[in-house]
Structures are given as C-alpha cells and as structure tokens.
C-alpha cells in the first residue's frame, strides 16, 4: 500500500504534482466534480476533508451540523480536477437530509472507522442507498479511517476489501491523523471519473462539468494550474 508522508502539513499536494506535470501555459481540460462524504457520526469525514484540503488535523473536530462545503483541486496528466466536496452530518437522524446532498454527485466517499464494527455496517447501508438512489454512474470509494488505531482494529482489512470488490468500490484504509492515503483516495477517484472534453456543450450525467479556462477558480488556493 502506498504511503504518503505522515504528519504532512503541506496543503498543496496538488501544486506539487501539478507543477511537475503541467508546466505553465500548457493546454488542458478542467473538470469539476461534486463529491459527497457519507458515514456514521465521528468516523472522521470532516477530518479527511480537512486533511485533504488544508493539510491539517484536529484531535477534536467539531461535529458537523447540516453540511460543510470545501473545494480542492488535483492534477492528473493534462486534466485539472476540481472537487466540490460536500461533507455531511453523520448521526443517523440527519439521514433524512442526505438525499439533497448526494443528488447529482459524481463521486462519494463512504467512511467507516476501522475500530468500530457498527460503523462498517452503516457504511454498507450508505453504499446500498447510493447504488439505489444516486446517479447510476457515481464513483464510490470506501474509506476505512483511523488506520493509526490499527491496534484497536475491529474491522479486518480483507473483509472490507472483499466487500468493496464485490460492489465495485474503490477501497483504502486511511488516517486523517497521519495523512495516510488521504490524498491517494481522492486521486484514485479523480482517475476513475470520466473526463470528457465537452465540446458538445451539454453536460452528461456523471460527467465532470468542463469549465471555461477563464472560469477556473482564481479563488481556490489549491488550484494547481495557475
């Protein structure tokens, strides 16, 4: 398994990769995707986003009420992928609000806590719901978070991997605390998303919106292609 640097505080991983792969002035596609995070309360959804977007980790992350929204950009070859990340509340009763968040999402990360078997069960429920209700082309990744607490593990790696394979999901164990696989899981999703050049104009379902070059997020600090 690929490891990113533990305790990395560098936020612009996209910058590093992008600079290497896309010299200034190179022509490339820019795609924007909506990604939603789902999973039981306190499994680390907001922490994964905070690590990915800002390179930070808080031991005690406030519980998310409603939904949070952040953006981050990654570069893949000649394509800039801008994620619009919708981070949701985990407690079961907030479930009734979830459909308005995953509606139209092209990607989802379903998160569980490897030290808590119940959260894995809940993750499976989310996957089922997405398969039934979300866009049929949605790319789903399963993240077994809190890998830094592997000594308290209650969900075996193989068990989750088998489940992911059976359901066609991307799968990684992650740690928002040490940064393990956090960038990687987003990159893996970016690779799997269809990045068509949309000259026809009409945006197809499950397909990133192609942005006009001038439209690219000057406001996004992580934008790699400036």
């Amino acid at each position: 398994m690929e490891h990113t640097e533990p305790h990395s505080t560098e936020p612009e991983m996209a910058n590093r990769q992008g600079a290497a792969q896309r010299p200034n002035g190179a022509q490339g596609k820019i795609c924007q995707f909506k990604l939603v995070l789902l999973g039981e309360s306190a499994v680390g959804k907001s922490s994964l986003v905070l690590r990915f977007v800002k390179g930070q980790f808080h031991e005690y992350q406030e519980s998310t009420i409603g939904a949070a929204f952040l953006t981050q950009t990654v570069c893949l070859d000649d394509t800039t992928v801008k994620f619009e990340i919708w981070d949701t509340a985990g407690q079961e009763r907030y479930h009734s609000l979830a459909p308005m968040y995953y509606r139209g999402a092209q990607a989802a990360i379903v998160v569980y806590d490897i030290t808590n078997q119940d959260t894995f069960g809940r993750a499976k429920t989310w996957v089922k719901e997405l398969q039934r209700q979300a866009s049929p082309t949605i790319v789903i990744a399963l993240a077994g978070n809190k890998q830094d607490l592997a000594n308290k593990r209650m969900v075996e790696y193989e068990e989750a991997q088998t489940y992911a394979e059976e359901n066609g999901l991307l799968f990684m164990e992650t740690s928002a605390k040490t940064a393990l696989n956090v960038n990687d899981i987003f990159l893996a999703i970016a690779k799997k998303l269809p990045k068509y050049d949309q000259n026809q104009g009409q945006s197809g379902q499950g397909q990133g919106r192609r942005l006009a070059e001038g439209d690219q997020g000057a406001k996004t600090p992580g934008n790699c292609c400036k």
Partner: protein
Amino acid sequence: MAQTMYSKIDEYGFERPANFDYEVHAEFMGKYMHILVRRAQRWSTLKGKNKFTRSSKLKRFIRKGIPLDFRASVWLQVSGAQKLKEDSVWNYSDLKKKITNPSLIDIIKIDLPRTFPDNINFIGQEQLTGQMFNVLAAFAHQNSEVGYCQGLNYITGMLLLATRNEEASFWLLKVLVEKILPKYSVTNMSGLLIDLDVLDDLVRKLDVDIHKHIHKIGMPWAMVTTKWFICLFTEVLPTETVFRIWDCIFYEGSKIIFRVGLTLIKLHKAEILRTKELSELITCFKEMRNHKDIIDCHQFMIHIFQIPGRITDSDLKNLRTKYSKAQNQR
C-alpha cells in the same frame, strides 16, 4: 467586557474568527457598554414578586436585552421552564441517578470533547463537560422520542455558559426542545424538514430576487441553515448576538428564528446576488457574522422586528401545516 474588546477570546470564552474586525467591534462596544449600563438600571427598577411575569412591558424589555445577572432567572420564568420544574413529579437529581443506557452514554461521551473545542471554558475543563454530560444524558433518558440529537450539545453548552447552573440548563433545554421549538430533534427531524420549506416560502415572499438566485445556484437551504434551527445560531453569529436572540426565543418562541434568518438574508442581499457559484454563496453565509450590522447586536435586534415585516403565530402555523402535508406526500 471592556478589557476583552481586543482580546482574541470573546467574553464567553470563544476564540474569535481569524478575520474578526476588531475596529468595528471596538467601536460598537464603546456604544454598547452604555446601553448595557442603561439596561441594567432599567431592569433593576422591575420590582415585586411578579416582576418577571409575562407582560408587554417585559416583552419590550427583553427585546432590548436581558442583563447577564438576570438572564437565567428571566429565561426560567418566561419560558415556562420554572413551571415545568415545579409541576414535575420527579426531580433532576433523582433523574440523574437513572442514567444507565450504555449506548446513549457512549454517543454523548463521543461528542463532549467535540463540543466547543476552541472555547477556554470547555477544553479540558472537566467541570463544565461533566455538567454537559449530565444534562444531555438526563434529558435523553426522560425523552425517548428525542434521545440525543447532535446539536443539543451546543445548545446545552451555551445554556451552561449563560446560566452557570446545571439544573437550570436542564430545565431550559427541556422547555426549548419539548415546548418552544417544533420537532427539530426527533429521530426523523420532521419539524426541521418542514421549517426548511417554510423558510424557503418566507424568503420567496420577502425577496423574490434572492429566492431565485439561491435556487439558480442550487444551494439546499439545509446546508447553511440547519445550524440556525438546530443550534439556534450558536457559532453562526457572535456569542453576544446569539444570547440576545435567545432572550427573545424564550419569550416569543420559534418564529424568532425566522425573523433572524430573514433579516440576515435581506441585509446581505447585495452580497448574495453578487455570488456566481456555490462556494461563493456558502462563503457569503459564513461571513455574515462579521458584518457590522450583525456585530452591532443591539441594532440587529431592532432590525429583526422591522426587516422581515409581519410574521404572526397563525401565519407560521398555517405554513407549517401546509408543508407538513407536502412532506407526508413525498
């Protein structure tokens, strides 16, 4: 309060936001200190056994802000929490002894260190977090329809900061959730879903341009307003503004939430219409707390009774009935 004007921590122990405008705040506080002194004098003229019973005079006083020293007792009186306590067949300390449900204890304990981790009164302070646990667990134990709902931790934390009294906080939480607010916190959050539709309706009536723009960008109201309903603006607006809002909620009820929400939206009309995409719109809502008309909580509390126009209890009741039917048909 004067010495905290330029402090990075507000008078209730919360860290101020990174982009906090100290100049605007200092200017406001210079003015507000006089108002607070004046209000404290006016409140001290209220005399007699029935000084906090409901009356148009008391309502007017409350809209202008309850002084800190009176806040807990006024909230208890005017909200009906005191009556709830007196009429109850059990008392709070007996109730606490009955907290045994292990799964409930676990979910509440997970949220304790996650509640106000930036507030110096809570981080590592066992006394307040212990009290918060007691209030939340006792409440959940006696109300199985609600149990524990994330968000109640923030309300309880704020109640403890305002009253510095565990038992008062319990009865105030109970009266809020069970009498004052609709069914926001129950297991299907039905009251929240209805009020999100009611808000959408009221925004459309208040300003059709704003309504159109929000829908064009495609922001679900729930995204930014769930905290309005569930946490009653905690951590959405500056702490002093939140307590001023709560003063009115305890007296006048949940329609105050709509008054505040609509005022926030209307005051930011230009900024909202300027946004071109979802991230900008969300940032606009997040930044509202730094607007000088909102930092000036005294003026803001005048605005909320003017800007949204007339909203009566029966208007609200009719809208809730309408959207409750719509929810059932979905």
